[in-house]
């Protein structure tokens, strides 16, 4: 094994081009487990910790550019207003020690269906900025996950940053596990209200081969909210609408039975989380914040 220590992003891209099998390591919370357990013996290990810009973020007009290695702790502490869904999801990641090291770039690189960031990224709307010596491109989050632990990265590409849309309305994240800390999701659900466009977006974790959106459920809810004038009148969501939304979210799952839970449990739990997160976000929208949201700013 060789240990590569690029001191700059350009050096990292050059090294990845020269050694496409090199495994990038940042927080190490996935990669080191595989090495410790002898599940993986990469020819090259490429440390990204020396590239300072990967641990930085910028808050722009429309979105936040989140460096691939920004640890979850920083997202929780500094980006709760801009990225509430992702901040909530970050807080459910493992333990303080892991949150101090792990970041969204690693979650995307591993592309496990159980990664905690995915539902929040899907719900908020995001683009993954990837680069190689051939050039840079932005992959829409919906096109990023291509299979179980597979993503749209080419062999010579590295994840540089994630561009996540700033919240224009309430967002929620919910996760089922056996306890609060140190738990991998049995299943998870993210929901974001987007009052500016009068749409909702969802993200489902750990209940299909990849993280997925419940698109039929989103379309149904978008239409129901529009039809009932809910965005303007701020009424309580009709229970039948919430139930139909929950059922459609369950239907969007394609889960498996495994040690953490059965497929039918996952479908059921996703429905429950969909209904709950809808209630939480809608209550928050109906509350003091609605006027602010309608003006177009998450004040």
């Amino acid at each position, binding site marked *: 094994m060789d240990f590569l220590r690029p001191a700059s992003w350009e050096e990292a891209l050059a090294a990845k081009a020269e050694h496409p099998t090199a495994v990038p390591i940042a927080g190490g919370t996935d990669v080191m487990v595989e090495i410790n*357990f002898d599940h993986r013996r990469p020819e090259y290990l490429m440390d990204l910790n020396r590239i300072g810009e990967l641990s930085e973020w910028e808050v722009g007009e429309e979105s936040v550019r989140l460096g691939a290695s920004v640890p979850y702790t920083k997202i929780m502490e500094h980006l709760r207003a801009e990225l509430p869904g992702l901040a909530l999801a970050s807080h459910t990641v493992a*333990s303080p*020690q892991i949150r101090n090291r792990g970041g969204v770039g690693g979650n995307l690189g591993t592309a496990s269906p159980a990664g905690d960031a995915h539902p929040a990224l899907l719900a908020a709307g995001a683009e993954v900025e990837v680069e190689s010596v051939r050039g840079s491109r932005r992959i829409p989050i919906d096109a990023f996950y291509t299979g179980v632990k597979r993503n749209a990265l080419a062999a010579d590409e590295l994840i540089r940053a994630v561009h996540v849309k700033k919240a224009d309305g309430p967002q929620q994240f919910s996760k089922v596990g056996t306890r609060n800390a140190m738990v991998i999701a049995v299943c998870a659900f993210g929901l974001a209200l987007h009052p500016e466009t009068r749409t909702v977006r969802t993200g489902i974790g750990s209940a299909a081969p990849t993280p997925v959106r419940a698109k039929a459920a989103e379309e149904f809810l978008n239409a129901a909210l529009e039809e009932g004038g809910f965005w303007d009148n701020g009424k309580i969501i009709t229970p039948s609408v919430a139930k139909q939304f929950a059922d459609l979210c369950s239907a969007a799952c394609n889960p498996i039975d495994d040690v953490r839970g059965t497929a039918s449990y996952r479908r059921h739990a996703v429905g429950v989380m969909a209904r709950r997160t809808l209630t939480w976000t809608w209550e928050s929208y109906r509350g003091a914040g609605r006027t602010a949201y309608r003006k177009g700013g998450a004040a």
Partner: protein
Amino acid sequence: MRVNFTVNGRPQEADDVWEGESLLYVLRERLGLPGSKNACEQGECGSCTVRLDGVPVCSCLVAAGQVEGREVVTVEGLADYARQRAEGGCTTGACGTSLQNAQQWEAKGTDSQTGEGTELSPIQQAFIDAGAVQCGFCTPGLLVAADEMLERNPNPTDADIREALSGNLCRCTGYEKIMDAVRLAAARQSEEV
């Protein structure tokens, strides 16, 4: 490969390090500092917790090469680290803990029951006084994590303590005595101010 980094305030050099090796292995097997414990090797148990540039991390999940040029504090250096923090930084020329002292560090002193005669950090003394140690395997990781929390948050609520220690598993005490110990250390700390 060779790795140069700072351990408990002193520069150290580890040789013949395998590229896939963890910081934990380097500390225990190459530098002779077995205070950080090796249990799950997957970041679940927290018994290998050290501070990397001040931040608590699982040393089993840090690749050795990643610590080049960086600062690590282990449980063996915790007493000196806490003392220097209380003194407002490094006041004398000899700061930190030498490798030899760290290798020989024990919470024994003249009385192993009370820790008397050994210089302990406040959190270590509180663990002894509250009876928060049974087999002791999880203790180093808990001490490092709890000490860092008290540095950041001198008046923690019970929820703060639980969250700060949520990455550290103990299989003997049931955590209540550990909670007592951290509350005790926090109370003593606020009395001193």
